[in-house]
Structure formats: C-alpha cells, structure tokens
C-alpha cells in the first residue's frame, strides 16, 4: 500500500508538471492572434490567459470524466498493477512533448497524454484494458473532426465579418474595431483552454486515485482539491510561458488581420466549449490551427500551401501513436524491472524535467524550438496582398467602366457635334459674306447706274430748264408780272454790279 501511495504521489506530481507544461506550451494558442494583430500587449495577454485558464478549469468536468471513467476499462484490470502504468504513460507523454518541442515539430499535449496512457495500458493489460469505443468516439474522431469543424466555422464567420463590414464607397470601414473584440474572443479561447486541457490532468489524477482506492469508482466528479491544484498549475504554466511568446510569437502570423483573428478565435472558443460540454477531449492546438487556416481561407484571394498544411497534419497524426510508443516503452521497463522499473522511470522523468527546465532557461529561442504551432498553421495559407474584388465590387467596377465609356462616347459625340456646328457656322458665314459681297456689289453697281442715270437726268433737266427759262423770259416782257420779275431781276443785277446792295 505504501508503494501505491508513493506511486500516486509520483503520478500526481508528474501529472501536475504535465499540466504546467501544457499551460506553458498552449498560451500561444489562446493569445497568438491578439498579440499578432496588436489587440493586446503581450504581458496583459499572458496575464489574462492565466486568469481565464484558472476560471475555465472550474466550469466543467465532462472531459475529466471521459479520462477517468470511460477510456480505461477499470473492471477488466488490476487496479494496483495499473498505477505504475499510469506513471509510465505520463512519462511517455512528457517525453514526447519535450522531444517535439525541442525539434520544433507540431504536436498536441493532449494527444501525447492519451497516447502515453493508451500505450502503457496496452502493454500492461492488452486490448481488453482500453475501451476502443470511447477512444474512437471521444478522442480519435474529435481529434480528426475538431480542426475541420473549427476550420469550416472560421471560414464561414470570416466571410460574414468581412461581408458585413465591407464598404463599397472607399470610406473607412472601421475594421480595426475588431481589435476590441479580440480582447474578448482571446479571453474566451483561454477560458475554453482551461475548460478542456486542465480537465485532462484532473482525469488522470482522478484515475490514479480510483486505482489506489482513494476515490469511489462510482464517484464521477474529481475531488475539489484536484480541481484547484490543476487549475492553479495550468494558470501558473500559462503565466510563466508568456515571456517566450513575447519574443517568438507572430513569426508566421504577421498577416493576420483583426477581423480574421476575431473570427478565428470565436470559432476556436465555440468549438472547444461545445466539445467540452459533451466530454470530447480535444487538442486546443489543433483546433486553434484549424481556425487560423479556415479564417485565412475566408479572406479573398487566399490559397492553401499544401506542403506546410500536410506537414502539420502528419505531425498531428503522429502524436498519438508516437506518444503511445514512448508510453509503452516506459511501461515495458516497469513490467521487466518491477518496482525498480518505476524508479528507472522516475529518474527518466527527472532527467526530462531538468532538461526541459535547462532548455527553457537558455537564451536561444527560435521559431524551431518555441511554441509556434499556431503560427506554423498561419503559414499554411497564402493570402494575397491585393485580393481580387468581390462580385458586388466587380459589378460596381463594371458599372463605373460602363459609365466612363458612356461619358467618353457622349463627350466624343458632343465634340463631333460642336465641330459640325462650327463647320456649318463657318460655311454659313462664308456664304453670307459672299452673298453680302454680291449684294453689295450689286447695290453699288445699281447705285452707280442710278447715279449715272440721275446725273444724266439732271443734266437733261438742267439743259431743259435753261431753255424754258429763256423762253419764259421772252414771254414776261409782254405781261405786267413778267415786267415786275424782270424789274426785280434787273434791280438785283444792278445792286450786285454797283456794290450797294444789302450785306
């Protein structure tokens, strides 16, 4: 019994350490996009993530129950013999996590945990020890379907967010306001992370307590101290993991826009929270990565870089069997060496923990050894800087072009009309001028003729008048009037000749 108590203590210690590394590793999942888009200061983001991970751990226990009351067939196995195997499984999970972390391979802490546990159980009790129905329906299928679900939802809501806020008049669209929203959505992701991931450790500890007989098998809920311990440990890990993020995050997420980040986080949070409620043990890394890829594809002109996406998918698929293999090896050591095997495993665990600690203290932080799984997923989608126009934008552009062409044609027609009028005007003016000149010429010739005729008439009249006057003068000599006239004429002539006339 003392050995069992010792193993339970070791399991709790290692499980809490795993919980700590989970929080340390997964801060990026919750806070990658808000830091990348500048919605939150890195330190604020990390503090917020830690607090909400703590709160999230208290929200639900469904996932914990999946781990402690479903995955392993407790009725088919020897409880005390299973305790060292849980320890071996945890070593498998921690070892695989550390290896992938150091090599910069995409991985999932959750799947490493399940892989290690299943591998160790298979070595200890064969296939009878594992409930494959639960494994398939609560772990493997959610692992495959959850990134897809998150990706599809992120794609749809990204389109919706861009569609609602799009403006066609070129005025500011206010999309930077999504940064405010990101503060809440990233908080939701942190909350969801606490809800799902902290519970896995709770489930492992509860399983160990049941195996040791410290908790009733019928009691589904974890003990309150277990909830507190796991919640605080994951929060501490999240907080201490933050400083790395400040330096490493966003290398692959520089292209994430606030509207896209908001949509991706909403999708991640909604998927994890809905799954947690039904007891599906998901990998938050995979869900967040699926959302980032989906939301990237939701932007116009984006396409998948299948090479990068394939590498990520292979990493995900490898996690469960690889961690299972390491867990199985640790379990084999226990089976071969008995209690000494537990000691060997404990030493191995200590070496791994010390190595992890030393590694985290080293200054050289690169994208290869840091938590860049989500950022790596961001690289799986190529987004054009100048996306092609939407259908409505194309229609507007066509309309503008049509109007432009019409305007051009109208101007051309007006120009032609003006030119025609000008030419007409010129022709008319010319014709008028010609006509006027002709008329003037005719008029002048008529006048000339008239004046000539008048002159001739005048001349004739003058000539005729003189003759008449002479004739009349001859006649007036015989009449008194003629005498008076002649006398007046004679006086006048006289005065004019003497110079004594009136002056």
């Amino acid at each position, binding site marked *: 019994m003392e050995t069992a108590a010792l193993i339970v203590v070791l399991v709790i210690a290692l499980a809490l350490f795993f919980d700590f590394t989970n929080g340390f590793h997964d801060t990026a999942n919750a806070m990658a996009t808000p*830091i*990348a*888009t*500048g*919605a*939150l*200061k*890195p330190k*604020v983001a990390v503090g917020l993530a830690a607090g909400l991970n703590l709160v999230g751990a208290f*929200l*639900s226990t*469904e996932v914990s129950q999946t781990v402690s009351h479903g995955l392993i067939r407790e009725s088919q196995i020897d409880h005390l013999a299973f305790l060292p195997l849980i320890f071996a499984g945890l070593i498998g999970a921690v070892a695989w996590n550390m290896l992938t972390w150091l090599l910069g391979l995409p991985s999932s802490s959750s799947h490493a945990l399940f892989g290690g546990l299943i591998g160790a159980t298979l070595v200890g009790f064969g296939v009878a020890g594992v409930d*494959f*129905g639960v494994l*398939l*329906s609560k772990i493997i*299928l*959610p692992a495959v*379907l959850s990134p897809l*679900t998150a990706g*599809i*939802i992120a794609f*749809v*809501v990204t389109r*919706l*967010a861009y569609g*609602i*806020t799009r403006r066609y008049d070129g*005025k*500011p*669209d*206010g*999309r*930077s*306001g*999504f*940064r*405010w*929203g990101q503060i809440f959505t990233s908080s939701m992701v942190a*909350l969801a992370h606490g*809800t799902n991931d902290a519970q896995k450790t709770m489930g492992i500890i509860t399983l160990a307590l049941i195996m040791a007989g410290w908790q009733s098998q019928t009691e589904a809920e974890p003990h309150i101290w277990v909830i507190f311990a796991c919640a605080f440990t994951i929060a501490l890990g999240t907080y201490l993991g933050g400083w790395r993020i*400040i330096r490493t995050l*966003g290398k692959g*997420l*520089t292209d994430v*826009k*606030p509207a896209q980040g*908001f*949509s991706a986080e*909403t*999708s991640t949070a*909604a*998927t994890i*929270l*809905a*799954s*947690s*409620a*039904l007891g*599906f043990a998901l990998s938050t890394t995979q869900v967040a990565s699926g959302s980032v890829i989906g939301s990237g594809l939701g932007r116009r002109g984006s396409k998948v870089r299948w090479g990068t996406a394939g590498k990520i998918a292979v990493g995900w698929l490898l996690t469960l069997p690889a961690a299972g293999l390491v867990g199985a090896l640790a379990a084999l050591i226990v089976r071969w060496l008995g209690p000494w095997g537990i000691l060997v495993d404990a030493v191995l665990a200590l070496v791994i923990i010390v190595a992890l600690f030393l590694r985290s203290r080293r200054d050289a932080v690169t994208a290869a050894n840091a938590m860049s799984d989500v950022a790596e997923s961001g690289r799986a989608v190529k987004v054009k800087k100048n996306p092609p126009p939407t259908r409505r934008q194309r229609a507007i552009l066509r309309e503008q072009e049509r109007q432009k062409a019409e305007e051009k044609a109208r101007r051309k027609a007006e120009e032609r009309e003006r030119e025609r009028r000008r030419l007409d005007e010129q022709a008319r003016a010319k014709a008028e001028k010609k006509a006027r000149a002709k008329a003037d010429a005719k008029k002048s010739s008529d006048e000339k003729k008239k004046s000539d005729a008048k002159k001739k008439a005048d001349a004739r009249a003058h000539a005729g008048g003189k003759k008449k006057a002479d004739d009349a003068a001859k006649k007036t000599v015989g009449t008194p009037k003629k005498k008076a006239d002649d006398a007046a004429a004679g006086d006048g002539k006289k005065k004019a000749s003497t110079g004594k006339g009136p002056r």
Partner: protein
Amino acid sequence: MSVAIDWLAFLRVFLVALVGALLVVGFYSTGLRLLVRAGRVPVVAPAEFTDAITVISPKQAARAEKAAAKAARKSPLSDAQKMLARIGAYASFTLCGLAVAAGILLIVLH
C-alpha cells in the same frame, strides 16, 4: 467487439459551435458597421508594436483617424439617423455579449 459512435453528438457540436460563432461574429460586425454608419469609425491602433506586428504603424493610424473624421463630417445622415445607428450599434454589441454569456451559462449548466 462493437463500437457505438454517437455521430449525432458531432453534429450537435458542429451546429452549436457554428450558431454560437455566427451570433457572436454577426452581432459584433453589425455593431461595428452601425458604429461606422453613425459616423464614429473606430480606429484602434495596436496595443504594442512588437517586431511581429506589421499591421498598422502609428503614422498609418493617425492617417486612418483623419480619414475617419473626414468621412464622419461628410456623412449624409441626419443627427437623428446617426443617433439611431449608434443605438443599434450598442444594441448589437450587447447582444453579442449576451450570446457569449449564454454560451458559457449553457456549458456550466450542462
């Protein structure tokens, strides 16, 4: 050994998550759109300019604020219409918050 898989549960997760995300994003986006319509274009500069962020520089933010103010001045809406749009925007944000709270409540009560 028969393995019973509850496929309906996956469909439920998908639908619940989809509806939840649509409500949150839809209401928030509508709120932003109405806020812009009310002439209050939000210009939110990044909280901190780390090396990773290339989204917007302080200069670009200042330019965006200027453009937003200009667009607000030229808004063809009357004061009453602007007020209505603003009320609609805040109502949308409230609905968005309520959708989130309802989601969390559902999980806690489940």
